[in-house]
């Protein structure tokens, strides 16, 4: 079992970046690797509650993010500073993600076999 970290830094509707990261996270869980997903910068906005993209015809991928726990993806991390930058608190988030300081993020990176930015 290897450790793989997906890092997201894009804003939620920047191309399909967040959805590509979601797919990558789910697939590594499916092939039984120890996957983690770290949200930082504007990517933290992808965890914001109550968004309704389907009202403008865009797929509601927030629904899929909510199901991560069902698929045993437990290592979801959010940059503490980025939440602050966008005025979000943990209760504004879709899922129960772990907040991380920068030094915790550095430690997380150092544990990985592979790190992918999407």
């Amino acid at each position, binding site marked *: 079992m290897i450790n793989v970290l997906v890092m997201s830094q894009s*804003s*939620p*509707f*920047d191309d399909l970046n967040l959805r590509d990261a979601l797919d990558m996270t789910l697939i590594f869980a499916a092939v039984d690797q120890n996957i983690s997903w770290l949200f930082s910068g*504007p990517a933290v906005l992808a965890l914001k*509650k109550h*968004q309704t993209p389907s*009202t*403008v015809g865009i797929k509601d991928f927030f629904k899929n993010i909510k199901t991560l726990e069902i698929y045993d993806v437990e290592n979801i991390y959010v940059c503490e500073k980025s939440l602050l930058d966008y*005025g979000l608190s943990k209760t504004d988030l879709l899922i129960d993600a772990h907040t991380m300081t920068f030094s915790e993020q550095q430690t997380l990176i150092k544990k990985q076999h592979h790190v992918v930015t999407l």
Partner: protein
Amino acid sequence: MSTLHIFSKPLNYYSANQLENLISLDDRVLLLGDACFASKQFKQFSDALLVLEEDAHVRAIKLSHNETPISYDEFVALTLTSTQLITW
């Protein structure tokens, strides 16, 4: 005679552009898409930001008192009352 500056992403996407030096005081700033998340970051360019209402709504964003919601019809009208448009 005002220029309309249009953004669709948070400010960090435009950091190369030295925007603070290219946006005049009497210019207007319109936020679309993911830029709506980041209205605070754009306040430095204009006191009265314009925000595409539908895009803000989809993102569960409540507008504050000095952010003006804009419909698509108003967006079209805005382009016509601006002397220049810049989509950054």
